[in-house]
Structure formats: structure tokens, C-alpha cells
């Protein structure tokens, strides 16, 4: 290669090179300063910010969920407990091919497509590296089946978790309620930090209203993790505080008796201990098994419950509103005496119907030919309607409303359950507001026999009965007897005592008439008096579902069963020392005396003579 060394000036080249080195060096220094400036920005200005980020990168706080409190009945029998249950859970981040894993599991354990879909839905809103259940309540056989092939399923494991279980199922469904998986709506209203490790929340009943107490306090464990989420070491931890145990006032034996007695019927039974307001029986039948709701009831089973004509999910004792029928009569009678409108011995002729002056309309008595000459005692014992038409007319709707309100009709009892209905106690003001119509005199008459607008819940009826038995001292029904936690034992706050001023003599007169309902020769609930050594005071009721036209005759046999009358019975016992008040409503049951009264009788008998067969045992009541 020929190289031409022409015009080369080594000295100038050297000078040029030197100047270029100086320039390059200055350039380098400047860029170095740039790097340093950036480092200062990151390490001094941003130090706190990045330190926090580094910390939140590696420190994870892992919730330690508390054990849910146990629910007992008044005798300490377990109504809701936590049972270990095996669940098959997956950590999607640790599974290479989720789809094939799911398919293999599906064929291994026979998992339905619905479950898979449910899992995928849950996976979407789960946190990273959290264990998501695919199959709950594995049988021992399924656990064994999976254990054999477990090494082939990285990221899949069987866990033993505590799951709520209701040993009495149907018997307690409407009182204790149930827990279920927390849904998105509930998640918004729950304290996030407290429920981070909790999967279940009380949905209805005691489980819901005492949710906070039953749940307990979540503990936390601060864990250092690496980028894969694997725990390296525990930095600090605080133990969870288990949920409080709750003792209910309920007696599961009585509960069972009431449930069995309603066999074949729809209806409700409420029994209250008069002195304390303890709810002994709280039954709505048909009931349902709450256990499937815990682990996720299938859509099909839920629809079956939801769409059933018998409405098993409907809490009749709490939310069922029925016309009180003749069970209202003792209260109307008492109002007549208290307002000095009538005297106990005052007699009235009952021809079988009643007419308002200047009106043609005949208000019928249930006995077509009438009761003849009756006083208040006869009117209650034989449930004469005409007597009460007359009494109601004289009292007028305003006084009826004022008086009945004192016994708690038309307002919630305040029992510790959610969703209670208040029933309806009509008044002029209510009618004006609700229907924009004036009050008609005829409506007062039918209010007097517990028909028309008036509606009561079984709980209200039991409470009013207990208040009457308690000489006007208002009874406050409640279900929780005590809430016991590691640190405290409390009884739920009792409201200030209320007392209705009543004349003792008037109450005695009404009660004596109610005794005759059960023990009198012409009483409508005579069947109850056999085999007992105490006095029961009660009143039957038959509430019309179907209005009979003026010239028609009500024929039970011909009527569709759904249009048949509701049978009611309210009672308390023993009369000389009232302890238990029972209200029974049997939907479409026909006559109160024949259907509803025996149910109340069984409960009172069991409560007051609990061990009739065995000697030496003390009654539970005290």
C-alpha cells in the first residue's frame, strides 16, 4: 500500500490532539457531575420515598384471622361451631399451566364446571400469591386421592380450615342465621384491616347482628419476603383475639318441640320468659338447612328455596304480619274496662250480627245464630264478635289505637335480629297518610275483632301477651343472654323499664276470662287443660284471609287451602306466677283452638314440667 506523507504537520497535530483531550476531559467531568446530580436527587431528595418503597417491597403483613365465637343455647348446647374442613386450594402464581392443572384436577376429583368458573372469578379479585379454594369440604377419600398425586401438582394443596357448622340446622336457621363468603358489597362496608384474613361474615340472624363480637380481633404477622413472595423471616407479630362466645336465651329442646309440633304446617311460634324477656322459642316453619349457605349453596338449590311457595327462607316469627283475629279481644276488653266504657258483668244480647245505626250492612258473628246474652267473660271465652263490635264502636278508633300501642302493637319489639317488621296498628292519621281517606265507623268495628287493617307479628303477639301477664310491665324480648370474651362478659344492654298503668282488678278480670278459654266448659281451647297441674290463660284466634261476601256462607272444606283462615293462639302460664308466654300462628290452619292451641300447650307443659317423668330435677326457668 502506498502511503502519502504529504502536508503532515506533527506539531500542529499534537497541539490539536492536546486541545481535544482537554475538551474531552472537561466533557467527561461535566457528565460525571450530571450523574452525581442525579444520584443526589435519588439518594437525598428521594431517599425517604424510595426507602418506603423498598420497605413495602419486602415487608408484608400477613393477617392471622381470629377464631369465630361459638353460639350456645341457654343450657350451653352448641348451636354454631367451627369444624375443621379440608379444602383444595391453588396458588395460581406457583402453577405453570393453570388450565391443564385445572383439567387434570377436574378429572381426578370430579369437579363441576360451575366450581371451576367460580374459582376463576375469585382468582380475578384475589391478591398475588394468595391461596384460592377450588373445592371445599373434601371427603377423606378425596383427600387421600389427591395426596397420592400431590407431587405432580405444584402450587396445589389441601388445607384444613375451620368452617362454620350448625349442628341443629333447620331448628336454628331463622334465629342463629348463617355465615357466608364475604361478597364485594359487604367488603366495602367492613373494616378492611380487620377482615383481611377472614373469608366469612354473618349474613343473617345472630351471626349478622353480633358479627363484630363473634368475629374477634385479627392478629398480624410482619414477614420479610423476597420478590417471589416467599417468607424469609418473621419480624414481629401480634396474636389474634378470638371472637366472643354468645349464649342465647333460646332453649333448643323447646325449639325442637315447637318445630316438630308445626310439622305439616306453615307458621311461627314465639315463646318468651315473662320475667326476663328471654326468648325461649323462636320458630318459623318451614325452615331450611343453613349449612349449605356456608360453603356456597348451588344456584339450583338456592332457586328451589327462593321460589318455593312455602317460602322457607321467610322468617315468619320476625317478619310475618298477620291479622290478630280474636287474639286481640282480651286487649280490647281491657281497654273497655280501663276507659270505664263497660263493666265486666255488663251484658249484651248477641243475635249473630251487628248493625251500625242507619246502616244496612250486617257485621256477622262467627256463630250464625248468635251467643244470646253475654257479658265480657262470655264474650272472651266464646269469642263473641258482636260484643266486641259494640265495645269497639263505643271506644272509638282513637282510644283503641292509643291503648293497643302501649302493648307494643304497630312497632318493632327491638329484638336483637335484623329485618324485624313493625306490623300495623291503624289510626285516623295513618289512614289519611297511607290511603288519603277518612276513617269509617265500620272499620272501627272490625278492628275490634282483630280484622281489617290490623297486622301483628308472632313476636309482637307473644310480647303483648307477656306484658299482659306481667301486669303491664313491658317485656323486652331478646335473644343474647351473655357475650363472653377472653376479657369480658357482658349482657346486652337492657332498655329502661316501661310500665303500663293498669288497674289490677281489670287485668284479673280479663285473665280470668282467658283462664275460662282453656279451663271453662265452653272455652275455645278446652283441649289444653288435660294433664296439667297449673292454670293456663289464653285466647284463640282465627284470622280471615278471604273475605266472605254478605250473603255467602264460609265453607272451609270447599275453600282452597291457601285461602283458609290462619289459626292463632296466645297464652301464658302458670296464671298465679306467670313464667312463659307463647304465641302461635299456623297459616291456613283453620281454627285457633284446634290447631294452634295444642302447640302452645306442648311448649308450656315442657317448660313448666320439664322432667315430668324423672324426679329430683329442677325446672330450667329459674
Amino acid at each position, binding site marked *: 500500500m502506498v502511503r502519502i506523507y504529504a*502536508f503532515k504537520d506533527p506539531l500542529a497535530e499534537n497541539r490539536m490532539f492536546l486541545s*481535544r483531550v482537554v475538551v*474531552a476531559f472537561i466533557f467527561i467531568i461535566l*457528565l460525571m457531575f450530571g450523574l452525581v446530580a442525579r444520584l443526589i436527587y435519588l439518594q437525598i431528595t428521594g431517599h425517604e420515598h*424510595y426507602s418506603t418503597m423498598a420497605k413495602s417491597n419486602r415487608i408484608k403483613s400477613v393477617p392471622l384471622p381470629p377464631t369465630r365465637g361459638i353460639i350456645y343455647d341457654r343450657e350451653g348446647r352448641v348451636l354454631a361451631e367451627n369444624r375443621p374442613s379440608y379444602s383444595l386450594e391453588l396458588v395460581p402464581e406457583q402453577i405453570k399451566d393453570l388450565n391443564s392443572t385445572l383439567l387434570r384436577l377436574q378429572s381426578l376429583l370430579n369437579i363441576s364446571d360451575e366450581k371451576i368458573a367460580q374459582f376463576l372469578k375469585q382468582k380475578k379479585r384475589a391478591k398475588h400469591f394468595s391461596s384460592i379454594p377450588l373445592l371445599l369440604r373434601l371427603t377423606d377419600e378425596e383427600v387421600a386421592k389427591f395426596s397420592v398425586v400431590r407431587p405432580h401438582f405444584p402450587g396445589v394443596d389441601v388445607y384444613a380450615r375451620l368452617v362454620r357448622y350448625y349442628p341443629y340446622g333447620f331448628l336454628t336457621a331463622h334465629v342463629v342465621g348463617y355465615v357466608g363468603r364475604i361478597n364485594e358489597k359487604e367488603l366495602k362496608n367492613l373494616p378492611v384491616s380487620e377482615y383481611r384474613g377472614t373469608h366469612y361474615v354473618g349474613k343473617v340472624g345472630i351471626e349478622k347482628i353480633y358479627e363484630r363480637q363473634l368475629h374477634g380481633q385479627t392478629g398480624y404477622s410482619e414477614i420479610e419476603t*423476597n420478590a417471589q413472595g416467599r417468607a424469609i423471616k418473621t419480624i414481629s407479630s401480634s396474636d389474634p383475639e378470638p371472637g366472643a362466645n354468645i349464649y342465647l336465651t333460646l332453649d333448643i329442646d323447646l325449639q325442637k318441640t315447637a318445630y316438630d309440633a308445626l310439622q305439616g304446617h306453615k307458621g311461627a311460634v314465639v315463646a318468651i320468659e315473662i320475667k326476663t324477656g328471654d326468648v325461649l322459642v323462636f320458630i318459623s316453619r318451614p325452615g331450611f338447612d343453613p349449612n349449605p349457605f356456608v360453603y356456597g349453596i348451588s344456584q339450583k338449590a338456592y332457586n328451589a328455596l327462593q321460589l318455593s311457595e312455602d317460602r322457607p327462607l321467610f322468617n315468619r316469627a320476625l317478619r310475618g304480619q298477620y291479622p290478630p283475629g280474636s287474639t286481640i279481644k282480651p286487649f280490647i276488653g281491657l281497654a273497655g274496662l280501663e276507659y270505664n266504657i263497660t263493666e265486666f258483668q255488663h251484658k249484651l244480647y248477641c243475635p249473630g250480627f251487628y248493625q251500625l245505626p242507619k246502616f244496612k250492612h250486617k257485621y256477622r258473628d262467627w256463630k250464625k245464630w248468635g251467643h244470646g246474652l253475654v257479658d265480657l267473660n262470655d264474650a272472651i271465652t266464646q269469642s263473641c264478635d258482636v260484643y266486641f263490635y259494640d265495645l269497639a264502636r263505643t271506644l272509638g278508633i282513637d282510644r283503641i289505637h292509643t291503648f293497643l300501642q302501649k302493648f307494643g302493637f304497630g312497632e318493632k319489639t327491638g329484638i336483637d335480629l335484623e329485618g324485624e317488621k313493625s306490623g300495623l296498628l291503624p289510626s285516623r292519621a295513618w289512614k289519611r297518610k297511607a290511603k288519603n281517606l277518612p276513617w269509617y265507623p265500620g272499620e272501627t268495628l272490625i278492628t275490634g275483632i282483630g280484622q281489617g287493617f290490623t297486622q301483628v307479628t308472632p313476636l309482637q303477639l307473644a310480647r303483648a301477651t307477656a306484658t299482659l301477664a306481667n301486669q303491664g310491665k313491658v317485656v323486652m324480648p331478646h335473644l343474647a343472654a351473655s357475650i363472653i370474651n377472653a376479657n369480658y362478659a357482658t349482657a346486652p344492654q337492657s332498655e329502661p323499664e316501661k310500665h303500663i298503668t293498669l288497674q289490677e282488678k281489670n287485668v284479673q278480670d280479663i285473665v280470668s276470662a282467658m283462664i275460662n278459654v282453656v279451663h271453662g266448659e265452653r272455652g275455645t281451647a278446652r283441649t289444653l287443660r288435660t294433664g296439667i297441674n297449673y292454670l293456663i290463660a289464653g285466647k284463640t284466634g282465627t284470622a280471615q284471609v278471604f273475605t266472605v261476601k254478605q250473603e255467602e256462607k264460609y265453607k272451609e272444606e270447599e275453600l282452597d287451602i291457601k285461602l283458609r283462615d290462619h289459626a292463632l293462639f296466645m297464652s301464658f302460664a302458670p296464671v298465679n306466677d306467670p313464667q312463659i308466654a307463647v304465641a302461635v300462628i299456623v297459616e291456613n290452619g283453620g281454627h285457633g283452638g284446634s290447631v294452634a292451641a295444642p302447640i302452645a300447650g306442648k311448649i308450656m307443659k315442657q317448660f313448666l314440667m320439664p322432667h315430668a317423668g324423672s324426679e329430683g330435677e329442677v325446672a330450667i326457668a329459674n
Partner: protein
Amino acid sequence: MQTETKGEHFHPPSIIGTILRKLHIDIPLFIGLFLTCALSFLILYSASGQNVALLIRQAARIGIAFVVMIVLAHINPRQFYRHSAMLYVVGVMLLIAVLVVGLVGKGAQRWLDLGFFRFQPSEMIKITTPMMIAWFLSGIALPPKPKQLLMAGIMIIIPTVLIAKQPDLGTSLLVASSGAAVLFFAGLSWRFMLATGLVLTSLAPVLWHFMRDYQRGRVLTFLNPEADPMGKGYHIIQSKIAIGSGGIHGKGWLGSTQSNLDFLPESSTDFIFAVFAEEFGLSGCLGLLILYLLIISRCFYIAVQAQDTYNRLLAGSLTLTFFVYVFVNIGMVIGVLPVVGVPLPLISYGGTSMVTLLAGFGILMSIHTHRKLLPT
């Protein structure tokens, strides 16, 4: 300028000095490199999760690299000059060979498997390109004329494009800059540099068009890492967290949580500076930058002391390229430059780049220790 002259009355003879002179080792540069490599072991031990096997592997590589450096230091720079063109042509042919093998192998190919070891021609071309340009420019009157500039430009572009095709954007940029550095030191006019800069900037959209998806992604991520914090932006965000959380004094040796708990990817290789910054803080970073600056200063000193144009240009280019290495890596790790696969020189884990770097320093030492020491 020259401080050393031949003769015993100028320089007190010492046995060690004589031995080192015979070894052709430049003491200040050697100390600087040795310190940096020692520091590398310290950080690697922490960044690798106290992996001793990895340290031993790295020690072996550094050993080889130092041997290469000393061997090259013994070769007279005249030999480099003489063989510049040949080495360049061989390098380019090897690059073409890599591309062909890569095409056959259907995938990115950067190395040739020679049976006993794997050889990356792109590493070799990092040194032979500036040699070639320096050889070419040293034969003409400087500053170069447009026609000569064009030729030099072609010499740079050929290996750059070949490497970019592998694809290895980081290395191709380094090769281009090493060639450009020679032109810069040869007195390329400022006006021309400015014009080239403007043209390249205006060509950016065209470049964008030719970039691969992952490369575009890197640029986008660089512009806004928070757009995809768990995906493409994860790297740079975790790196910034590591550096920022180090503060002024750092978390102490082995105290890095970002790297020890695996939040920081590639903590032993390209992102090792983040580990260093997390453990030794701003003060440590300043120390490391000063160490680099001292090495660069010594290299520039050697360049200035060099006795002919070829040696000067080559020494200047190797020095500036070394700085580009440092700047591109740290700039990427602290989030001021897009992510390009450039390791932190002398510190990152990895063998090939270490050998190339120390080969460069070997050439610098050769240039310095083979001067004809004439009295002025």
C-alpha cells in the same frame, strides 16, 4: 513534557522498578484497575447472594484478562500499527461469519463456538475498529478531508451495522463511539460534529422504524417507566428504589434488601451499580466515580505522552470509550438513559467484556512503556 530520560542519574534504580519496567506495567494504571477489580469482588459477593462459586469463576476470568493485558503490554505498539488493517478485516469477516451462523441457527447470535471456547468477534472489533481508524488517519494530514472522512465513516459503519444486526445495540453503539472518538481526537471540525448530531437527531424517527419491538419498548419504558411498573418498567423502578433507599451512607455491605431479596433483576451483571449504590450510598458512589475518573485521567496522561499520531489517537479513543462504558451503564441504572445491555466496566459479572477492557488497558500500557525515551 517528558520527565523521564535515559540515564541512572535521573532515575534511582530499584529492583522492583526494573522488574516492572521489564513487565511493561504502568503502575498507577495497574493500581487503579486492581482497586476497581477488588471492589468488584466485594460487591459481587453481596449482589450474587454470597455465591462463592460465582466469585471463583469471576476471579478466573479476571486472571485471564490480566494475563491478556500484560501480554499485550509487552507487544510493541508498532506491531499494532502494522497489523491494524489486517486485524480489522479479520474482525469484520468474523462478524459476517457470526451473522451467517446466526442465520443458520435461526436466532440472535453473538459468538462463534470454537470448540474449546466461545469467541465474540464483536468484542474484538471494539478494539480493532479504533485501531483501523487510527492507522488510517495517522497516514494522512490531519484534520481529515471530507473524502477521507467518508472513508473513515464507512470503516466505522460496517462493523456497527453488522453488530446491530446480531442484534446487539449496546455493543454496536460502543463500537461506533470508539471509532467516532478517534475522529474527534484527530481534529474533526466542530461544525461537522454539530451537523452530524443534527442529522442523527432528525434521523431518529427513521431509526425508530428499524428498531425491533423490544428495543422500542426499552425507549418507551425509559421515557415513562411508571406506565408498566410490573412489566417493562419493573427493572428501572426497582433499580431506582435500590439506589434511592441507599441514601447518603448506604445500608452497609451485604445490607441490600432490593438485591438480596431478588427484587432487583440482573443485580450481578448490568444492574450491579444499583446494588453498590444501595449498600454504600451516595458517598460510595462518589468514591467509585472518582476511582473511574482517576483511571481515565491516567489514560489521558498516557495518550498525551504518546509519541506518534497512531498511538495518541488509539489511546485517546480507548480512554473515551471506557468512559462511555461507565456513563452508559450508570446512566441506564439511575434512569437517565434507556436500558442498553452495557455492563459496568471492571465491576459487572461477566468475562468477555472484562477481557476486552483489560486488553485495551494492555495496549495503553504498551504505548506508555515502549516510548523511545529521548532527552529533550
